[in-house]
């Protein structure tokens, strides 16, 4: 029983990280229909920026995360302006190639600036708490809570504010949104900004339980793609639910079936879900 609860908590932790990354990915996909392969690189940049702010400038963890959100958000905007915007009329394959190009560029860039070695991010929340035989570190608790808070904020932003509504409008129908006076350029930039910010939050939260290194984005990006396919491309609830499904299936699968096959379990799950609902769990009828 203790093991089950412990593994549920572990799944919740990792699922929260996955969901945050997948959210950024699905937002961009929903609005611009670009599979942003470079999203993992944004995640990695987020880790490095937070780490640099903490070690070089001595900023507090939260302030460092805030700076990181802004910086990575701006990198996202820059990406949209310099690469994806000029490609908006090009065949879709160009976007994909360009995204891979950005991924390679950012990884090489990080290695040039910060070096190739593993770095450890300190956290003010090192302490370990034991409740009913359940082992929780404060950092993990923080990941779970912060992820939920971020999701609620994102939901409120999209549903309750005018700017958020323009993003939804554009994901539903780009031309229609344009016709009723939504500035699609602005919305595209804003989406990339939020997407980058989400990546920065995810990596800054999860980096203390792992390490910061140029290839860290690859840990999550493949899984994030699985999640958004599973949840329905472009669907926000899909990304959240998909993230937790994958997190739980990994931790419980590793415990009760086999650790060596836990990736297969996730993919079998994907196959089953896509067999029953080929467009993903929460796909919209439109696309």
């Amino acid at each position, binding site marked *: 029983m203790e*093991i089950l609860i*412990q*593994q549920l908590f*572990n*799944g919740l*932790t*990792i699922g929260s*990280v996955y969901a945050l990354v997948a959210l950024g990915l699905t937002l961009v996909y929903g609005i611009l229909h670009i599979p942003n392969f470079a999203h993992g690189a944004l995640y990695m940049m987020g880790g490095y920026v937070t780490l640099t702010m903490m070690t070089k400038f001595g900023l507090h963890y939260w302030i460092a995360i805030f700076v990181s959100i802004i910086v990575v958000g701006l990198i996202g905007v820059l990406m949209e302006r*310099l*690469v994806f915007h*000029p*490609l908006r*009329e*090009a065949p879709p394959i*160009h976007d994909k*190639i*360009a995204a891979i*190009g*950005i991924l*390679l*560029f950012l990884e*090489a*860039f990080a*290695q*040039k600036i910060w*070096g*190739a*070695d*593993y770095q*450890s991010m300190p956290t003010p929340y090192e302490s*370990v708490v*034991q409740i009913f035989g359940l*082992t929780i*570190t404060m950092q*993990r608790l923080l990941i779970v809570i912060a992820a939920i808070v971020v999701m609620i904020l994102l939901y409120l932003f999209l549903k309750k504010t005018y700017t958020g509504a323009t993003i939804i409008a554009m994901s539903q129908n780009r031309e229609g949104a344009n016709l009723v006076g939504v500035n699609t350029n602005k919305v595209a930039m804003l989406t990339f900004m939020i997407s980058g910010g989400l990546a920065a939050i995810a990596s800054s939260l*999860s980096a203390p*339980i*792992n*390490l910061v*290194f*140029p*290839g860290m984005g*690859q*840990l*999550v990006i493949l899984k994030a793609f699985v999640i958004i396919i599973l949840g329905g491309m472009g669907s926000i609830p899909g990304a959240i639910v998909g993230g937790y499904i994958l997190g739980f299936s*990994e*931790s419980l699968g*590793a*415990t009760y079936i086999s*650790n*060596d096959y836990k*990736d297969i379990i996730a993919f079998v799950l994907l196959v089953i879900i896509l067999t029953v609902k080929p467009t993903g769990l929460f796909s919209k009828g439109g696309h």
Partner: protein
Amino acid sequence: MKRMKSLFIMCFIFVMIFSLAACNSTSDKTASTKPASNGGGSKSGDVGTVNIGYTGPLSGPAAFYGKRTLNGISMAADEINSAGGFEVGGKKYKLNIVSLDDKYLPNEAGANAKRLMQENKTPIIFTPHSGGVFALQVFNQQDKFIIGAYTSEPKVSDVGNKLTVRIPPRYDGYLKPFTDYAMDKFGKKIAFLPTASQYGKDWSAKLKPYWEKQGGKVVYNSSIDFAKETDFFTIVTNALKEKPDVLFIGGASEPTAKVAKQARELGFKGGFIIMDQAKLDEMKKITGGYDALNGAIGVMPLVDSDEAAVPEYVKNYKAKYNEDPGSEAGLNYIGMYAFVEAMKAAGSVDDVEKIRANMQKGLDNLPDKAKVYNIPKIGEDGGFESKLVVAAVENGKIVPIQVK
């Protein structure tokens, strides 16, 4: 028009990528050719150059490891060159290290070695991974070059390749001291959580029968893919569920340290057997002190070694590369010196069979400053037979363990 524009962007990206790559290789080149050009300036007529090849991971996730091995070789070469080079058969020679990136891939290592032979005629090619060594062993006897193999994989010296020199001690030598110590101090139940690389699996395959022969039991046998796992809590929880007395962990030092740390967070009180790839001193930086690693047994960190040459070496290395040297740097450093001494003894810089035959003399004639490890002898199989230096962490301190 749009198409032109997108084409332009693509070109731009590629130019960026290539220019970045170019930056990389030029900086490597200048670093490696500097010593030779210095030599050319002083006495250009009668100073020869010996090119030494290196193929290893200089980009990608293992780049830091490749860099450290290369640092060891370059440092030895720089020292030899700044002392005026070395004399073979009445002629002065200087060393020139030619380094190529193989991204940790055996096939790239093979291609690099071919290129090094054709363009630079390198009598010796260093490579720091077993896959690369195997790839090079396919043709090194025909193409006539010695492999400076930095890998503790016993198979590289078991295949009977006459021109392979294995620099580190073979890892199966560690099985007995590690097992004895861990069983004695903690108990007979062990859980396996090494890295998922081929090397980690080979280690597990050797350790398992040995541990069982000593009356121990393997209660959990899995591995962690450091390139895929974001969090190790799940797998460590599962391993600890079986109540092991000892954890076998290993891989690159930093993620290995995270595994150890998370095991402690989850309440693990037993000992660790640490695979030789991970270094205790590098792990300490991640765990924030040796206390979390109490009861761990692994390879003695170079900085804590009591060899006479070590303090001076550590000081020089730190001044040059701004970090503590590990065994990657230290062993390759000795390796480079041993090859130079062997060339002197052989009286040739390009007759590789003769150089290989004189490796023992090369080790005998090592200058005192190069003896950062005690390597008395090279075996018939081409492996350096060094004294194993093993250390354990007790009460937050490194304690040397005598290997019988």
